[in-house]
């Protein structure tokens, strides 16, 4: 069998403790367990006010009038602002297309759109004052799906589009369209012995990070503002905030405060501009904290999707072709929709080798809630559909579903539908083999000497069954996710690294603007610095805009890109440190100029291990500091007609096996086990790797069996904006998650690592669905699956 890849080898730093490959513990762990870690919602300032946002109660309407008089007259209220109070020329923002009004201007386009903002001395005063603002709406027809969006006489969600996609979309209510055409589908279809078609529906998922949107804006003496904020990308926020405030970016200072999870939901702005506007208006610090209800309106969600798939295969189990059409509902504003379209189209084939494809993905403008980034970003919806197709094909061919997938699995060298070759290990077949080889959980685990333990049965403590009607099912799935920003985006990170002697010890300080949102980037940065600089002590400087951009904590990219920037800056620091060493001590030992030198354990050593000098002596009276941008290999835009182009920089692969038990009478599902195998390239911090894989797996489980934002198709209003009605998995809903980690180096990436955060979110959902299908024999073409779908009462 040919080799499918090899692990990374590390020389520099291999003898220094706490470096790459060790499960070092989080530097913020103690503060997070004692309650002292300051999240954005914990910020406090002397004399601060509380901000509140008034949101639209209807989805699509003209604003006839806004009366703020009573709100302004409320004791304790310091300011009420509407669109008319925006003084800068720029009044919209947006990640790619600036189509989102800071405050509604004459019209609202979705339920919960910000209309007015209030600042008061108590949060309840602010809430009550906001409720006193009288807004008169004249309702407009709502656009809620593809048919209503693209009808010839459809009302346009945005009347005056001038963005760079408008020229190639079939209708102004389509944000972006990406076709991918390769090979000859008609001819390939002739070769197919079996054809399988499917129409799939993916529900709207919420990121449901636990720390609601919040921040504190403090006016500065120079007329600027300092914002303490929970976000995924400080510099992207800054670029969008400053123009609306009418300030140069230098007068908007941003510091990352504690972030209570993100998962894509903090890529777009939420309360940032509103807090700054109120702070600048009142001259006082203003804090805004959403409650959970508002959080459901305050950030974009995962695009719900309709996916139409046709695959063919020969009797010996080889895929012939793929025809698919993916319709994503982007809601009222563009957010990340264009990039989500790019991902959905370019990854719609999954981790399989198919030469003949005809693919189209579009995102709609509708009056539904805006949708954008969420973990998996377009690849999640596609994976749900293509994996269902794989099972259908295997069944039709009478083949084992895992064997069928392995027969068609891509590998290094496979050409993607975009024409891009896969140029690093792609151990898809191996991951499937591994996940299938894991031991199965024992049958009837609920049985004990004292009778049935209902906690281990579907329905749990509701005591709905003691095993009657319970059927086990097993399902498999595998997925492919791109790592980093794609399609030609200049995806760079900046790192500043300083090395000096502090308290008689060599200390490295790493300063980046990377948003630590829980993923453990701060842990990884310290590990990289230890490995590259051979020191024990590393200080991670708080993230702010006093250093260059670190890009987004998104797209599984931070360890790759900001980690790469830290590594690169450390290497430059190491060179300078060695240069200082040669200058000071070079004459004492010939190895200074002849041997390969390493920094290990606080000393300069030769590659043979001979100590030349202590770093304390080298750095005596000196300090070294480097700030550098670092980029991964460039990518290309996809051709707008053919979808051809080297659009992605790296892929990430994970496979799941789900074991479920279904109470077939009541339609209740208990996921017993979700085993995962994933190639991570290099496990920089093995403990954190498991945390990412298990956490991503459970988000995939959530959208398989419970998570969905329900939007009324008649009114486009959100029906369940609370944790009472929008369910995320509890510890009782969650199974054991055994993980098999593979480490095959990607030679293009720092340490050979692969971005890991998203891939497990992809295959988890279709694996659970496949297992439920096995248990019930039902087709189940939508996710999430609810009891009524299993009992036939939907």
């Amino acid at each position, binding site marked *: 069998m040919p080799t499918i890849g090899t692990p990374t080898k590390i020389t520099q730093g291999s003898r220094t403790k706490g470096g790459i490959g060790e499960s070092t513990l989080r530097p913020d762990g103690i503060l997070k367990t004692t309650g002292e870690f300051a999240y954005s919602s914990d910020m406090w300032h002397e004399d601060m006010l509380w901000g509140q946002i008034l949101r639209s109660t209807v989805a699509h309407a003209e604003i006839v009038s806004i009366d703020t008089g009573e709100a302004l007259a409320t004791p304790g209220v310091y300011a009420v602002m509407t669109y008319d109070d925006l003084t800068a020329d720029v009044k919209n923002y947006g990640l790619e297309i600036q189509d989102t009004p800071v405050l509604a201007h004459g019209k609202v386009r979705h339920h919960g759109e910000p209309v007015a903002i209030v600042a008061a001395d108590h949060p309840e005063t602010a809430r009550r004052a906001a409720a006193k603002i009288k807004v008169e709406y004249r309702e407009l027809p709502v656009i809620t799906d593809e048919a209503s969006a693209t009808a010839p006489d459809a009302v346009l969600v945005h009347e005056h589009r001038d963005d760079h996609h408008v020229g190639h979309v079939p209708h102004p209510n389509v944000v972006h369209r990406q076709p991918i055409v390769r090979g000859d589908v008609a001819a390939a279809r002739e070769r197919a012995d079996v054809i399988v078609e499917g129409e799939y529906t993916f529900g709207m998922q919420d990121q449901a990070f636990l720390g609601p949107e919040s921040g504190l804006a403090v006016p500065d003496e120079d007329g600027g503002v300092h914002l303490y904020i929970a976000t995924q990308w400080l510099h992207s926020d800054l670029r969008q905030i400053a123009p609306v405030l009418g300030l140069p970016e230098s007068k908007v200072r941003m510091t990352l405060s504690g972030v209570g999870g993100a998962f894509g939901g903090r890529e777009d702005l939420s309360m940032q501009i509103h807090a700054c506007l109120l702070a600048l208006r009142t001259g006082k610090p203003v804090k805004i904290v959403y409650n959970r209800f508002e959080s459901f309106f305050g950030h974009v969600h995962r695009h719900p999707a309709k996916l139409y798939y046709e695959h063919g295969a020969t009797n010996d189990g080889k895929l012939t072709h793929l025809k698919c059409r993916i319709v994503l509902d982007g809601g009222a504003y563009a957010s990340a929709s264009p990039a989500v379209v790019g991902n959905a189209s370019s990854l719609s084939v999954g981790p399989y080798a198919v030469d003949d494809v005809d693919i189209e993905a579009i995102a709609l403008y509708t009056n539904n809630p805006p949708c954008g980034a969420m973990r998996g970003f377009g690849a999640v919806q596609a994976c749900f559909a293509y994996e269902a197709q794989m099972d259908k094909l295997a069944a039709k061919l009478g083949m084992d579903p895992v064997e069928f997938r392995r027969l068609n699995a891509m590998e290094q060298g496979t050409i993607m539908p975009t024409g891009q070759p896969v140029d690093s290990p792609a151990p898809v077949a191996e991951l499937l083999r591994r996940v299938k080889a894991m031991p199965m959980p024992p049958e009837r685990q609920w049985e004990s000497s004292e009778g049935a333990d209902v906690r281990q049965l579907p329905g749990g403590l509701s005591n709905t069954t003691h095993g009657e009607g319970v059927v086990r099912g097993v399902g498999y799935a595998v997925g492919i996710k791109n790592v980093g920003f794609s399609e030609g985006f200049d995806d760079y990170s900046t790192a500043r690294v300083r090395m000096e002697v502090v308290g008689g010890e060599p200390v490295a300080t790493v300063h980046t603007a990377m948003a630590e949102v*829980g993923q453990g980037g701060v842990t990884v940065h310290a590990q990289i610095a230890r490995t590259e600089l051979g020191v024990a002590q590393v200080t991670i400087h708080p993230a702010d805009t006093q250093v260059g951009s670190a890009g987004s904590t998104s797209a599984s990219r931070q360890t790759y890109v900001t980690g790469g920037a830290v590594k690169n800056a450390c290497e430059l620091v190491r060179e300078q440190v060695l240069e200082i060493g040669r200058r000071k001590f070079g004459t004492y030992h010939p190895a200074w100029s002849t041997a390969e030198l390493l920094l290990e354990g606080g000393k300069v050593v030769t590659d043979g291990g001979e100590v030349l000098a202590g770093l304390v002596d080298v750095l005596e009276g000196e300090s070294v500091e480097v700030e550098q941008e670092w980029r991964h290999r460039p990518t290309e835009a996809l051709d707008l007609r053919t979808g051809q182009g080297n659009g992605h920089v790296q892929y990430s692969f994970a496979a799941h096996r789900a074991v479920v038990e279904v109470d077939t009478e009541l339609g209740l599902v208990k996921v017993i086990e979700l085993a995962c195998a994933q190639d991570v390239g290099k496990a920089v911090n093995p403990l954190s790797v498991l*945390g990412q894989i*298990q956490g991503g797996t459970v988000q995939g489980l959530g959208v398989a069996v419970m998570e969905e934002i329900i939007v009324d198709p008649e009114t486009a209003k959100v029906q369940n904006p*609370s944790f009472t009605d929008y369910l*995320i998995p*509890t510890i009782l809903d969650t199974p054991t998650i055994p993980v098999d980690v593979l480490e095959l180096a990607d030679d293009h990436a720092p340490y050979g690592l692969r971005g890991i955060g998203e891939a497990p979110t992809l295959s988890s959902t279709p694996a659970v669905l496949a297992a439920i299908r096995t248990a019930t024999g039902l087709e189940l073409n939508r996710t999430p699956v609810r009891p009524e779908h299993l009992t036939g009462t939907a």
Partner: protein
Amino acid sequence: MRVNFTVNGRRQEADDVWEGESLLYVLRERLGLPGSKNACEQGECGSCTVRLDGVPVCSCLVAAGQVEGREVVTVEGLADYAKQRAEHGGCATGACGTSGTSLEDARPGVPPDEAWGRAAKGQDSQTGEGTGSSPHAALAPIQQAFIDAGAVQCGFCTPGLLVAADEMLERNPNPTDADIREALSGNLCRCTGYEKIMDAVRLAAARQGEAV
């Protein structure tokens, strides 16, 4: 109104409390104890879990007036509470029949004003980085176990989970996995997938067993 109660062993007096305020609001915004988190304000997520006279409750669902004269333990007081319990044979408050030192006598606690120091000055939360293997003296065993097992990611659910897990281990020192899941089912976590939380509670239980 004025509310008098005991928090982490220290008598507290909160003035000008509006009748609609929750215990969570008073802790966070009036007493400088923001460790208890507000993630849903509906009793669904458990992020605000504190102990009220020993019983774990969602502090967002407790009206401030209800705590008059009662004892509250928050995540900020968990280490002291666990220490007291260890010193008094499993009872942290001294209310279990043995006459122990009250928390207040044992340690006056951090003045609330100091806790406000987290104000908008940025924070050094990510500094002082070591390789992180040595136990921290001022942590409760459950806190140390969460750190060691990798049960903390964003950490927003952590305070509530710690209070709930600590209470469960007090009642049930040898929990089965099903016991742990049942006890923590009122605490949502969105980052970890709960596996490392399970590991952390198992680890704390095992260490507790070794220590006896």
